[in-house]
């Protein structure tokens, strides 16, 4: 676990441009913003000692502000519990802060709805909320602490804000898709070890393991139903990988294998049309840039509802115009919600 936490800390040194999904705070609203240090706080917890944010340095933190009356928050609680469970082994700390409710109401609500893996904190005065509210967010709310409701922050192991999301009633999605995608990216990088994707060798070429970066969005499938897992391969510029049906018998085809999961049956992977690469008069079948592979999935009628993480591997052989690298296999994970 220590190693994993170390790797997570290394991964936090990641990309310079921080993600700003559509539900992000806007730069013109003012600080704090993604990239800023998260304001520190100490709040009483429903269980155990008071919790100080800075004590989580070295771990990723998911911070969410709620109140029991907030219907958006309420719809999200189950998904927050699930993220806490899924990523507990990765060292993710999930902090839920109740805003200015009577302690007994918050206690009752938390006991009924919040998993024991989540830190249940109480901001009785709204002072903590005020440290986080960007000054120009929701100017109509004169009671400024109110502007924090249903906000979500992902904080990196150095205590910097990676994501700062505010509720969007038009595109409301209680499953935290932006947070999941970000965590998937970060954890994937951690799995890769201290060298981040794109890290180049002295001569400017990439290691085979860094040519392809895999992401996979959460898939929602009904119990007893069918769905499709999408796995996206991001192939480094200047490189190609052999397609699923390479042009020569000795070329390594790109393949995806998903691990066994109870109650799930996977169909054959569907690959897009390959692109042809001109190898000096000879054209070979390859993939370049971004490729989406689709894997049909069937969920058994008796499967339990809930969240499943499926582990998989991608095997490929990457080449440049000049030379080919050794074939390589990388792990990835994909999330399924069975409903």
């Amino acid at each position, binding site marked *: 676990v220590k190693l994993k936490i170390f790797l997570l800390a290394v991964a936090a040194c990641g990309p310079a441009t921080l*993600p700003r999904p559509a539900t992000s705070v806007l730069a013109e*609203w003012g600080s704090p913003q993604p990239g800023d240090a998260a304001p520190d706080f100490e709040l009483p917890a429903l269980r155990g000692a008071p919790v100080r944010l800075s004590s989580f340095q070295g771990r990723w933190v998911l911070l969410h502000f709620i109140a029991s009356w907030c*219907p958006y928050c309420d719809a999200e609680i189950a998904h927050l519990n699930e993220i806490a469970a899924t990523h507990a082994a990765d060292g993710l700390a999930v902090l839920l802060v109740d805003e200015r409710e009577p302690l007994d109401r918050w206690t009752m609500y938390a006991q009924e709805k919040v998993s024991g893996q989540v830190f249940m904190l109480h901001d009785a005065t709204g002072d903590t909320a005020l440290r986080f509210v960007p000054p120009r*967010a929701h100017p109509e709310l004169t009671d400024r602490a109110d502007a924090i409701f249903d906000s979500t922050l992902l904080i990196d192991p150095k205590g910097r804000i990676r994501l700062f999301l505010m509720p969007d*009633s038009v*595109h409301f999605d209680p499953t935290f898709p932006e947070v999941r995608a970000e965590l998937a990216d970060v954890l994937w990088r951690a799995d890769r070890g201290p060298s981040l994707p794109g890290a180049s060798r002295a001569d400017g070429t990439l290691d085979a393991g860094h040519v392809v970066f895999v992401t996979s*969005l959460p898939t929602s499938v009904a119990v007893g139903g069918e769905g499709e897992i999408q796995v996206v391969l991001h192939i480094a510029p200047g490189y190609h990988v052999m397609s699923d049906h390479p042009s020569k018998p000795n070329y390594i085809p790109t393949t995806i294998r998903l691990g066994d999961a109870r109650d799930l049956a996977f169909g054959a992977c569907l690959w897009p049309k390959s692109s042809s690469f001109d190898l000096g008069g000879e054209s070979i079948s390859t993939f370049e840039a971004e490729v989406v592979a689709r894997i049909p999935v069937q969920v058994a009628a008796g499967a339990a509802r809930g969240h499943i993480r499926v582990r998989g591997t991608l095997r490929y052989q990457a080449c440049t115009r000049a030379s080919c690298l050794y074939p390589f296999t990388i792990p990835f994970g994909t999330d399924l919600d069975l409903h």
Partner: protein
Amino acid sequence: VLSTIRRKIVHVPKEARPVRTTVPLALLLWSLSLGLGCGGAAPARTAQGGRPNVVPVTEAMGSPHPGDAAPDFQLPDQGGAEIKLSSLRGSLVVLAFVTSWCPFSRAEQPYLRQFANEYGPRGVKFVAIDIKEPEKDYREYVDRFAMPFPVLRDAAGDVALSYVPPRVLPDFTERYKVVVSANLVLDKTGTIRFFGLIDLRNFDAHYARAREVVDGLLSESGAT
């Protein structure tokens, strides 16, 4: 590349994203709109940089939606008098759902009063419905905002529920909360002409959309 993925995740079509503008511009537009004396008109831009907006209820969300008859009800007002919605036929009606616990609902109440003060003299009737609150919270609301129109107490939340379109915000388990801060405009026949749910990122605290509809209906009836 990753940003492409994220766009796919959030299902926000590019054109649906509000156009960003700088805050000074928003403030300038806002102060202009006040300076020109547009009588309590809304700021031209929200903090998000877009137009103040609502989530318009559509036919796809289910009934009631614009074009339907507004579900009738009878509820007590702050003085204890029973008010029946259908008794207001013959007038344009602005119907606003309010609660004291929702910060957005609280924030828009002064503008609801302003709206009523401006349009009441032109024959528009205003009705607020306080949803499913204890008597104490209802009284507090009534005393705090001293509305010049009936504030009805929907103690069980049944009336609110009768206005919830079934296919919107399906993740809300307490369904009546879908209409918190929603407002409607009914024409003289009691037909819904406007039904807006709250758009949190482009919060229309000033009832700008409802005002536009009321203005349109007033000029329609003025022309006939």
